[in-house]
């Protein structure tokens, strides 16, 4: 038994480790960029809707439609669909660099939606109280709106991250590697089922760990 394990580790350990690192790399970079784009978009969606501080029908409808359109496209199609755009932005369409762009395009609108629903939960009375105290709108956005919705934001980001891990499985198609790619190429195409089982197992642990971490963090931020 132990022999088999050490044999497996000798043969696949390095590959799995590298794939794991690639997945981490892709997920963390695209998550960071997606939050940087998605959070402000979510705030904008909340502020420009009818009856809110910066009511702007045109901008709201534009954002709303755009986000819906992008979110209708499955990642695997999006990946190829925006190849010219990817090339324009990072100069290449392959490797980790090439897959970050479609991952961000895929995730940012999703995060914007999650942020929107999180921010909409904030009691508008508190916002009114801060307006009444003569506090600038940008401070209200950060210190009331975002602050009060942190528990929901964390849960939303957990969901987004898990979705992102799923999407990176397809990154192999443009040679970016990662766990999903490893499982597909070796496990499926070369019938190395052990590799498939191990990667799936790692993915399960990863997702479980993330969700638990997200839940705990959210609960700690929530004070009621």
């Amino acid at each position, binding site marked *: 038994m132990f022999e088999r394990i050490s044999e497996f580790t000798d043969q696949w350990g390095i590959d799995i480790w590298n794939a794991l690192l690639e997945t981490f790399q892709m997920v963390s970079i695209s998550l960071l960029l997606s939050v940087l784009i998605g959070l402000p978009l979510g705030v904008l969606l909340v502020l420009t809707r009818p009856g809110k501080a910066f009511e702007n029908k045109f901008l709201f409808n534009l954002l709303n439609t755009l986000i819906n359109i992008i979110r209708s496209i499955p990642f695997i199609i999006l990946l190829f669909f925006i190849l010219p755009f990817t090339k324009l932005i990072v100069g290449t369409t392959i490797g980790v660099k090439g897959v970050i762009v479609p991952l961000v395009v895929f995730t940012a609108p999703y995060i914007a939606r999650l942020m929107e629903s999180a921010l909409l939960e904030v009691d508008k009375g508190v916002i*009114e109280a*801060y307006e009444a105290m003569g506090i600038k709108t940008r401070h209200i956005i950060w210190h009331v709106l975002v602050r009060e919705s*942190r528990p929901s934001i964390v849960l939303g980001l957990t969901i987004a991250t898990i979705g992102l891990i799923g999407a990176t499985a397809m990154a192999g198609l443009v040679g970016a590697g990662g766990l999903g790619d490893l499982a597909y190429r070796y496990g499926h195409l070369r019938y190395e089922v052990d590799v498939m089982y191990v990667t799936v197992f790692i993915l399960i642990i990863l997702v479980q760990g993330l969700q638990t971490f997200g839940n705990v963090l959210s609960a700690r931020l929530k004070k009621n």
Partner: protein
Amino acid sequence: MIQLENITKVFQTKNNVTNALDDVSLHVKKGSIYGVIGYSGAGKSTLVRMVNLLEKPTSGKVYVDGKELTTLSTQKLNQVRRKIGMIFQSFNLLTTATVYQNIAIPLKLTGVSQKEIHNRVLKYLKVVGLEDKHDAYPSQLSGGQKQRVAIARALSHEPEVLLCDEATSALDPETTESILSLLEQINREFGITILLITHEMHVVQKICNEVAVMENGRIIEKGDVLGIFSKPKSATAKRFIKSIFHDEIPEQMVEDLKDKGQIVTLSFVGESSGKPVLARISKQFDVFPSILTGNITQLKDQPLGRLVVHLEGKAYETAKAVLFLQQEGIHVEGYVPEVKLSV
């Protein structure tokens, strides 16, 4: 201190137009506690939001401390708003921040120095009696305590005016009493002018100097509390006052008595409450007064008594008795003159 001039507010939705405020003018003197009372939908919430321009008037002018607000830039308006505190029915605290942070964060955002913030938080938490709750979260506090935090938050900006939007409506009677006492204390100690809106006459009775009664976006009656309480003119004001005295007479009884004489409500204010007037009318006129129900209550500064009395006697004698009562400074309500007195 606060002056609203001919304020009109029209809310326009797709299907209809609502006149939330219809030519409302109001003047709140510096250092007074002014109550605006009305049923829900009367426009009082919109009215109080005019003072710090949370709602912009469709037309009319808003003056606070002599400054006209409707023409100010956002930045200038923010400066003015910092001197106008506000508390709400639902407290509106940050749920994710401690009591200390709830007071400190707005101060920080308005540019108060770190040291000053600390001093003020401690000072005003002490004023509201919550010095041992610094690190509690709002969810760990009772309704009354949350409102105290909100009051401390408002006071920490050292405002000249405090607006109270149904501040006690979500609280139980006992807690309401303690919050009202606190508001009165704030008014006395810091000289802060208070404008409060409420649907409970009891709130007006307890702490207000002046009161305005609102209905359908208009102020239908206003004046000092004693005047309105002893001589209400509008039906709405009368109804609010009834809610304090509970001096409704059973209908059957009214039916039985009305053939033998009139039923009148007498309001006694100040010195008139000391005189034995009923004894005197029965002696001087051919009238037999019998007390159906009576009540005395404490307004902010003086007591106010109400008696519902049945005056048994001939029309002429009753008329003379009523005139006598009025001359003694008693407000008589519900009397229907049946004969003309030749004086």
